[in-house]
């Protein structure tokens, strides 16, 4: 018997459990877990920080290193998208404007 087909299925089942447990973590116990006050106040920065931590490397790094050129389609795209956001406050428009700057530079000029 070879278990070659079994291992990926096991891996996926474990990942399902991880999704469930991490997302429900503090909702699992019946009683409140006591959190110190400073941690409770500090946690309000966590979602913001998680997003910034995911985005920043996507914007200024490639292949694990800081980019060394300004001729990168991501930079003007992010500037225009952010400017649009502060002008109109819409997420949909932010995506559209960013992609409208990014795609021509990336596909057309290879930035």
């Amino acid at each position, binding site marked *: 018997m070879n278990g070659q087909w079994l*291992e*990926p*299925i*096991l*891996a*996926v089942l*474990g*990942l*399902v459990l*991880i*999704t*469930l447990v*991490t*997302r*429900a*973590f*503090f*909702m*699992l116990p019946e009683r*409140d*877990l006591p*959190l110190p006050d*400073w941690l409770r106040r*500090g*946690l*309000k*920065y*966590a*979602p*913001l*920080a*998680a*997003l*910034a*931590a*995911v*985005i*920043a*490397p*996507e*914007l*200024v790094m490639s292949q*694990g290193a*800081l980019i060394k050129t300004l001729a990168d389609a991501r930079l003007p*795209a*992010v500037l225009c*998208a*952010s400017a649009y*956001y*502060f002008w109109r*406050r*819409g*997420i*949909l428009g*932010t*995506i559209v404007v960013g992609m409208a700057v*990014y*795609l021509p530079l*990336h*596909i057309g000029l290879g930035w």
Partner: protein
Amino acid sequence: MNLPALRAQLRDPSFRQGASDMLGAGLGVGAWGLVTGVAMVKGGMSTPLALFMSLTVYAGSAQLAVLPLMAAGAPLWVIWLTASCVNLRFVIFSSMWRSYFAHLPRRRRMALGYFSGDVIFVSFMKRYPRPEPEATQLPYFWGAATTNWLAWQIPSVAGIILANAIPLSWGLGFAGVLALLGILLSMLGERSSWLATAVAGSAAVAAFALPLKLNILVAIAAAVAAGLAMESGERALRRARIRLARGGDDEGDA
């Protein structure tokens, strides 16, 4: 759920509000789902396994992180540890979900947890900034969660099936980054939140070489510390100003 109940749910104004709050970011979520679907198949996964993974795991960042590990035949514990680290931010979010949904039975709390992604969290917290239960929260949550599920799964399945017709070099994944950027900008308010964002972004880049995506946790820890430090600095400044205004004659009070 039977049909009339489902229809009543779909007509609920809070359900609709939740759904429509998600539409803008839904485009980005969709682009990200498409890219994840394509990447799974191009990374060497069979179509049935990719479909199974997308429909059950339902966590884009974790899926993308473990993809190269699974393709390389890494040990299960490495795969699981990596996914857990990438998902640790959800543990932090769940402590906030608790203040809204602690009164529900555990089975429902677990269902809520499973379907609560990043984007849902952000739009829910914007709609209900006060951490106390309200009757409209549950339909709002399910409106947002349904939209998010569809916005992710439909493109993801399409990406898996059409993998070989969609070139990743176009950079469609960038739309997902832009969606996250829009969400991030919408969360910025007080000065301390700008500082926390700048600190988190720099820390994530500086610590990028860490294994298991631990740079994200380093960034969160640094940002929380910076945010708290700035808060207490501002408090101390305010106290000092009040003391100055009073002429410094009641030094002793708290």
